[in-house]
């Protein structure tokens, strides 16, 4: 049985060579790599099929590696934790929480990926390499990324009000007042979901304080009462400071969840003009509203005080639990544009890989978002995902809750900073 498979695979390889591919020599060498790999990720359904396409692309280069993928769904951290505790981890896993990866790395459960370091830096840039690096060793490769530095808007409302998508925070402030004067509240804020508020804060903070302070704050090396935090909270008031500029008012916004915050941009009449959230808003618009292409647009999160292009993102990071030639080959493959393009062409995927050809993305908006992501001078992982979950990731607590209180009472900047510091001090001990 094995022989037949090998034979068939070898034939496939020969066909590739015949088509005049330059990687003929490499493909021949790749024949030597064999074995099987188990991969664990959160993707299911359509995403699972798309990831299959990535595996197929891998198998084109490494025909003798048998990759089996299993979806753990949203329970991945728990499933993985259990598997690792039980001494039976998968070969490869995709984890969305850098904190979890750091935990595994510290416990010595992960294999070093330093063999792929150059490939990561070359394809993604240092910013992305840093995300998977702990104590100087590369442990993770950001494969599927999310771009959370976006504003989504209703094009009709913008053109009725005669405003253009803003490029700077001053533009944003003016545009918001103009839109309000046209009778539509400019901002839709999902106050019931605290993470949308932390995303907003992080986008502003990365722009006002810069990446170094961002990293320090993420590690709680500087306090939340730092002047840079106060400054960012003050800037945040541009968006949440005026209750009249928020759909439903500050009080109503606290009960609007994320899907509703997107839907209400496209009700008739629209309840708001724009919202700030990640690339996944596109999915909500497509599935939950009647908006057609052209009814909605997307703009890059505006620059604050002349800040350069920066992206707050998230994503699924590939890590290796068991070292093997096949495992190394697979992890190296993840850094290549081919791996990203295999999924990107199917939609629902962004890569921070700068060498991915933008034309593979299925539509203009995705292309714009992906280009923003790849072109960003600075890429930083969502800070609240880096924080201990008690502070940065729990509904009704920590940063989520405190920023919700800030939305309710945006004049209390000092009190908000103090509350954040108190909560952080407890969570980071």
């Amino acid at each position: 049985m094995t022989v037949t498979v090998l034979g068939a695979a070898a034939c496939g390889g020969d066909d590739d060579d015949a088509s005049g591919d330059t990687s003929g020599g490499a493909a021949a060498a790749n024949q030597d790599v064999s074995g099987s790999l188990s991969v664990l990720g959160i993707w299911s359904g359509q995403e699972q099929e798309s990831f299959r396409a990535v595996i197929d692309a891998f198998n084109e280069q490494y025909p003798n590696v048998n990759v089996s993928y299993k979806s753990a769904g949203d329970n991945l951290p728990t499933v993985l934790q259990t598997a690792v505790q039980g001494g039976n981890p998968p070969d490869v896993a995709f984890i969305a929480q850098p904190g979890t990866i750091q935990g595994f790395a510290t416990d010595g459960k992960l294999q070093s990926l330093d063999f792929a370091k150059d490939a990561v830096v070359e394809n993604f840039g240092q910013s992305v390499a840093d995300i998977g690096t702990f104590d100087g060793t590369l442990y993770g490769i950001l494969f599927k990324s999310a771009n959370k530095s976006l504003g989504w808007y209703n094009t009709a409302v913008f053109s009725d009000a005669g405003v253009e998508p803003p490029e700077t925070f001053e533009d944003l402030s003016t545009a918001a007042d103009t839109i309000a004067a046209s009778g539509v509240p400019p901002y839709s804020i999902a106050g019931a979901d605290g993470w949308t508020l932390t995303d907003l804060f992080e986008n502003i903070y990365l722009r006002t304080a810069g990446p170094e302070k961002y990293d320090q704050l993420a590690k709680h090396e500087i306090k939340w009462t730092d002047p840079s935090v106060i400054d960012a909270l003050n800037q945040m008031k541009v968006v949440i400071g005026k209750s009249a500029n928020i759909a439903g008012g500050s009080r109503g916004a606290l009960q609007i969840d994320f899907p509703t915050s997107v839907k209400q941009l496209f009700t008739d009449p629209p309840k708001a003009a724009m919202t700030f959230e990640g690339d996944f808003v596109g999915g909500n618009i497509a599935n939950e509203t009647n908006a057609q292409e052209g009814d909605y647009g997307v703009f890059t999160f505006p620059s604050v005080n002349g800040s350069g292009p920066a992206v707050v993102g998230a994503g699924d990071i590939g890590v290796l639990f068991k070292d093997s030639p096949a495992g190394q080959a697979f992890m190296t493959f993840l850094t290549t544009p081919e791996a990203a393009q295999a999924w990107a062409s199917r939609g629902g995927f962004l890569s921070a890989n700068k060498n991915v050809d933008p034309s593979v993305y299925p539509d203009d908006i995705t292309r714009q978002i992906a280009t923003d992501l790849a072109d960003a001078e600075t890429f930083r992982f969502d800070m609240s995902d880096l924080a201990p979950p008690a502070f940065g990731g729990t509904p009704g607590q920590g940063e989520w809750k405190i920023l919700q209180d800030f939305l309710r009472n945006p004049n209390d900047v000092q009190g908000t900073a103090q509350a954040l510091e108190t909560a952080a001090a407890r969570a980071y001990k």
Partner: protein
Amino acid sequence: MATGAPAADLPPAPRPEGPARTRGDRLRPLATALAFLAPAIVLLGVWIVYPTVWTIIRSFFDRAGDAFVGWDNYKEIFENDALLKSVENNLIWVAIVPALVTALGLIFAVLTERIAWGTGFKLVVFMPIAISLFAAGISWRIMLDIDPERGAVNAAIGQVADAINEPGPLTGAKPSGAEVVQSGGAIALKDPVQPGQTALLGLTAIRATEVPDDARQAGRPRALPDGITGVVWRDFKPGGGKPGVVERGETGLPGVTVELRTPEGDSRSVKTADDGTFAFEDLPPGDYRLGIGSSTFQQGFDGVSWLGSSLVVISCIIAYVWVWAGFAMVVIAAGLAALPRDLLEAARTDGANEWQVFRRITVPLLAPVLTVVFITMLINVLKVFDIVLAVAPASVQDDAAVIALSMWRVAFTGQGDFGLGSAIAVLLFVLVVPVLVLNIRRFRREV
């Protein structure tokens, strides 16, 4: 199936007769008992005893489970505001819900006994029990939404509220320039005007769709020597325009009632024309005040914040009572059906009125049933979890949390503090134990 094997140990049919019983014979019933009990003991051991004991042990260790921290986790419960709040909320639940559910159940049961469509009514009241608590919670959360367009409860209140306080044609409009100010709902010129002058009442924050269809380009008022003229218009065109200046592309607002107060204190009013202009004529000289009354800007009902921090506990309780009242009613109705009718008849014959019969006969006779319902609800309420999770939005979960929810949030929702979570679980256990003891003693008495 496990009990199948020990059957082989049972004594064989032809028993040796006589008094000479061996030690094995004496042990045999014990072995049989053990064999029959084994499955239950194993199940209880694995799923009840072991987890309970382990939880108690775990509660004395830290987050990671490595370091012994003594009573620190328990102290934390009473020092952490959010956790303390959940204990308080649980006390509110305990104080209100069991009594309320029992009372409602009793009322429904007694009433349904007397009405023609009793069975149908019982069916309707009992129906919520068939719905999962979580689904019921989601339904209530949607019904209690603050936005009357989504929340049925606010929509109903809104119908009444809007009928009493009719919303104006230009809700949410704001003055555009500095000459016009908003005070107490009305929008008026800041300074008095004299006859011969014109007044510009520019308004913004009006949707294009709110402007009446017959509206035309805003007119520029022409001054009258013995009158005050002016215009009310939507002071907005794409890009914003100049505030306070009537520009091309800005529409007048027809049908707006403009009010004029004379120096003597009388008031006159006039409606604006299609281009938004208006005129008050034949005015003696003097200082006049001009504005648009608050009824034009009267906001519609914007919803009671049922799920806001102050009302959310009550909202959860309403949803919970809605679910459980049917259960209480059915159990109490069953008890009611078993009451000896002759006692009630005797009381009535002796001249007791219905209230006295209810108070002195029905309720005392029903006491055991009422106690069962009350205690069942007490235990249920101490453990209440899913309805709070479903009803309370994340932004107010701190305000709505109960002990079981706090335990789950602390231990499982990413915080991963199993030490503190275990301590909360033990606290919950300790709170439930007295009720359980009460229940067991009552069982004994009944048996």
